[in-house]
């Protein structure tokens, strides 16, 4: 049979799926063993016990100085920033995207600007950001917003363009004005697509958050990674990276579930389009 027609059965599937993860683990274990044999206190690729130690220290033992459990503190801090940033960007993106997608005057005004803005590397203009919003929580949230918002607006504009023109006409023949058309016809159809856009922008949002936390912060996952990088504590960094990956994965999953639950019509409509 042709390769394209050959399908693994359930068991093979699971074995195959586990394979690359196993390979990475084995490669790590080997590398770590070699390095630890040379230098027992090697920090770059620590052994299992170091990880267990570090995880225990970060996730289950209160910090001596502050009494906080660092991993939870960092997670809560980072998530609060991330969620705030994404929520603001989503709300703003929705508002501006809707206006620019529907109203030619707004689009003429904003479309070129947003296109250019989405290409500015936000990390490079951080100093100005600091001056405008200060160095506190606001700056981290703002960096996420500044980085993600233009992309969301662009996305939503394109997605409104993708709605069949006939729908807008039809709504007008049913008596819609610009406003009711926006809230009754376009908004509800754009919301599930906004979730898609947010999912796409989760990665960049994390990147911006980590970068912002690396620059000035007192807690947060990115802060901790950059802090312990100062003494090459890979035994802390790697679990943190894994944890961030897991959080990212869960957020993505959550958004997918939200999309399915909140917009039951969407999946079918997309499939039949």
């Amino acid at each position, binding site marked *: 049979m042709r390769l394209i027609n050959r399908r693994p059965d359930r068991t093979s599937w699971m074995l195959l799926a586990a394979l690359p993860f196993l390979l990475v683990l084995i490669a790590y274990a080997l590398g770590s063993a070699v390095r630890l044999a040379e230098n027992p206190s090697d*920090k770059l690729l620590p052994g299992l016990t170091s990880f267990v130690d570090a995880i225990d220290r970060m996730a289950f033992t209160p910090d001596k100085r502050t009494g906080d459990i660092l991993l939870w503190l960092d997670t809560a801090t980072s998530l609060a920033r991330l969620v705030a940033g994404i929520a603001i960007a989503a709300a703003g993106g929705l508002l501006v995207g809707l206006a620019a997608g529907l109203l030619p005057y707004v689009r003429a005004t904003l479309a070129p600007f947003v296109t250019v803005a989405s290409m500015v590397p936000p990390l490079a203009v951080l100093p100005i950001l600091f001056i405008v919003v200060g*160095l506190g929580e606001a700056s981290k949230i703002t960096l996420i917003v500044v980085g993600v918002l233009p992309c969301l607006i662009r996305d939503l504009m394109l997605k409104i363009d993708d709605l069949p023109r006939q729908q807008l006409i039809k709504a007008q023949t049913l008596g819609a004005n610009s406003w009711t058309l926006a809230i009754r016809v376009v908004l509800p159809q754009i919301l599930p697509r906004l979730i898609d856009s947010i999912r796409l922008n989760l990665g960049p949002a994390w990147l911006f958050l980590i970068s912002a936390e690396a620059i*000035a912060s007192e807690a947060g996952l990115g*802060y901790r990674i950059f802090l312990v990088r100062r003494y090459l504590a890979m*035994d802390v960094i790697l679990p943190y990276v894994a944890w961030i990956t897991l959080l990212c994965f869960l957020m993505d999953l959550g958004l997918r579930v939200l999309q399915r639950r909140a917009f039951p019509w969407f999946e079918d409509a997309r499939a039949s389009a």
Partner: protein
Amino acid sequence: PKKEFKLAWSIYVGWMPWQYAADQGIVKKWADKYGIKIEVVQFNDYVESINQYTAGAFDAVTVTNMDALSIPAAGGVDTTAVIVGDFSNGNDAVILKGKDKLSDIKGQKVNLVEFSVSHYLLTRALESVKMTEKDDVTVVSTSDADMVAAWSTPDVTAVVTWNPLVAEILATPGAKKVFDSSQIPGEIIDLTVANTDVLKDNPAFGKALAGIWYETMALMSADTPAGIAARTAMGKASGTDLAGYEAQLKATRMFYKPADALAFVRGPEPKATMQKVAGFLFDHGLLGNGAPSAEAIGIEFPGGVIYGNKASVKFRFTDAYMAAAADGKL
């Protein structure tokens, strides 16, 4: 045996000579003399250069005494200070906004690169006015690259940092220097360190480093057009100009001559300093997991004096290479 060696350096007033030496062929000249190859690699990010050295990607790195202890030494990489280049003599400073007494720092948020020499300087400064980091200030970790920008925001009122950032910050209205490293002379030392095992197997590498260094020192300290050209180039490479660079040099006690460096390293200061530094690092949990005390890592000084755990000496000051340079035996 090994023939090719790599040195990592990062941009700082006292380490700029490495770049210049590489550009001017001084590195190659000395490497050829010893029949080896030395690659000089520039880092923008200081911490990353030390990490790379610690991970084994480099044989030598430019580093401060404190970071040498907390990163490679605490990471089990036996490290030897081949060259003691200078110590900070005002290059690091505590700066307040609108206040001119150090004691005004009480209760403020202090922006600095956490766990860096700035952090150490803050601790020492607070000691001098009977305060402690834990009770009297809040440390906010801030990247050095953005320190100047951070200072321009209204909510940042106290920073501890180093040059050229200090100069930039002091140039803004309202910035007052309330403490600097000239008040703890000799405690923040800029080194060029190398892996002890590599040095042991290849003494030529250490000798070449010393040869390169002191030839460059002679060049840049001279008041000749060549010296000015060297300093101009170094200033430019660090993102400023001749005047800016010379201002930074002024706040640095450079050991242009090997003899000066020898006098310093053979003196009592390094040992006293390292004792304080180890204490600071231990307090902040930076001497490795489960280090039982500040003396968990042994530090060797010229003449075989050892501070701390004699069974686990990971950081060594040596006078061997600088002495050779002083004696013209390279």
